[in-house]
């Protein structure tokens, strides 16, 4: 129960429901779930380049020749990347930060996926960076930080989407139409 409760998105009641289902109502499903989770944790890990889920060192996006490597879209989490891909509106590459700056909760730059971001900017192939972070206070602060500390020192065009996105929800919960217009309406920082 405690272990389930610590998962994101599960409160006390839903954790209780899931635990009861797995232990009492349908123990067979429980074994199947454990097997698949074990397989997944063994087979999947973060992509060494972008932080996306990957079966090998590189994720399928980073390994593909079809993507435009001059455009880099910065997102907070893997679910944001999935939402962008589902909408099918972006042909460039991604970089997943795995969070945003939030000093009160103890999240500083050292906890974000920034070292590999700087590494991949070294060869100068990236011409435009699109910041697709939420338009809440932490998202905004993170954009300012990246712009000043990482992109500002290089010859890169930096744009930001997020205008018109539901505030707080971020990219993950936006529909295709909203995401497309947010991307088309991106503005220089």
């Amino acid at each position, binding site marked *: 129960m405690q272990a389930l409760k610590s998962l994101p998105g599960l409160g006390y009641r839903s954790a209780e429901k899931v635990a009861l289902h797995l232990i009492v109502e349908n123990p067979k499903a429980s074994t199947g779930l454990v097997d698949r989770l074990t397989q997944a944790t063994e087979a999947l890990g973060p992509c060494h380049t972008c932080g996306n889920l990957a079966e090998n060192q590189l994720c399928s996006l980073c390994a593909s020749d079809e993507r435009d490597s001059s455009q880099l879209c910065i997102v907070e989490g893997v679910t944001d990347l999935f939402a962008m891909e589902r909408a099918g509106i972006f042909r460039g590459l991604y970089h997943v930060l795995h969070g945003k*700056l*939030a*000093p*009160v909760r103890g999240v*500083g*730059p050292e906890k974000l996926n920034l070292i590999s971001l700087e590494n991949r900017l070294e060869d100068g192939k990236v011409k435009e960076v699109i910041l697709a972070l939420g338009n809440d*206070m*932490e998202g*905004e*602060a*993170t954009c*300012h*930080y990246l712009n*000043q*500390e990482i992109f500002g020192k290089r010859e890169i065009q930096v744009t930001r989407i997020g205008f018109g996105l539901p505030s707080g929800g971020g990219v993950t919960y936006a529909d295709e139409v909203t995401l497309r217009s947010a991307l088309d309406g991106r503005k220089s920082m």
Partner: protein
Amino acid sequence: MRLLGINLENFRNIGSLSLEFGTDRIFFLGANGQGKSNLLEAIGVCSTLRSFRGASTESMIKEGESEVRLFVRFLDDDGGDREAMIRFGKKGGKTVEVDGEPVKRLGDLLGQFPSVCLSSRDFRLVRESPSDRRKWMDLVLSSTSSKYLTALQGYYRSMKERNVLLKKKAADPEIQAFEHSLASSAQVIQQIRGELFPALDLAFEQSYAGLTNDKESAQLSYNPDCLADSTDKWLSIYEQERMRDRQVGSTRRGPHRDDFSLLLDGRDSRHYASEGQQKGIVLALRVAEFSFLKYKLGTMPLLLADDVLGELDPSRRSNFRKMLPPNAQSFATGTSFPSDKEEEIWESFRVQSGGFVPIPLSATDG
């Protein structure tokens, strides 16, 4: 706006109560500590989600109980029925519904059911530290401008983040990242204060003049901690102050330090007004709040008077009545009626141990 009825459960010493009101003047009569002020406080909570006594939500929950429930029914100025339901518990978290729809943000409740409360605590607005005056100003402005409330909430959240970074001696770029939202909120806050303060001042000057039969004059004067008229200027203020902010581990300058003075004939009434004049000044400030809310919201606020009407001398009391619209609904409390002649003009309830019993007109005696 008129309050037609209120249901309370577990609010302070009131276990369960359901009252209906049929008039514009309601009086709660009883000895101290019986619960008459608690009822006014509950009405105020339905309007602002805050206690006019400055009490925390937990402290308003009846001892041994876990949840407060408030339900109020109003008649708005166009004759429409409105209702609000508020619940809060020991574990924190508030549930608010307006007209049956859940309300997620404070801004969606503030200003819907405006009220103005006079209480003996009001002297703090003249005598005490700036923080009481700032709280008053922020609540009045937030009730009339959701843009103000949003900026204020953003400002305090950004400042909290910045202060954490200052305390742990974080590098400049990280602190700067949060100064952008701090600066843009500061800009909005001060701009709205600057725009709305003249209207508040005018209302205050008129009400104080009315209260003293034009014999004395008083003004509100806005005293910003520092002035800036653009986000960029705010950014450079926070930049300039950062070194010294680091030493104390907090943000020292900004709109969170703004204040205003209540001037009596041009001089600060904190030092130059008599106690009687100070009482008049806070009363005038409340009347100004009433007119400002009414003007900005287009809704007649409720007037809550906690144990103060009896304290006014007869001429101030009658001037006070004249300044308020005759059809403003008032709820007053006292250990006795404000004057002997008044018992007939009030719809009255006798309050004892958290119970409220209507007093029939014929039964009131001296």
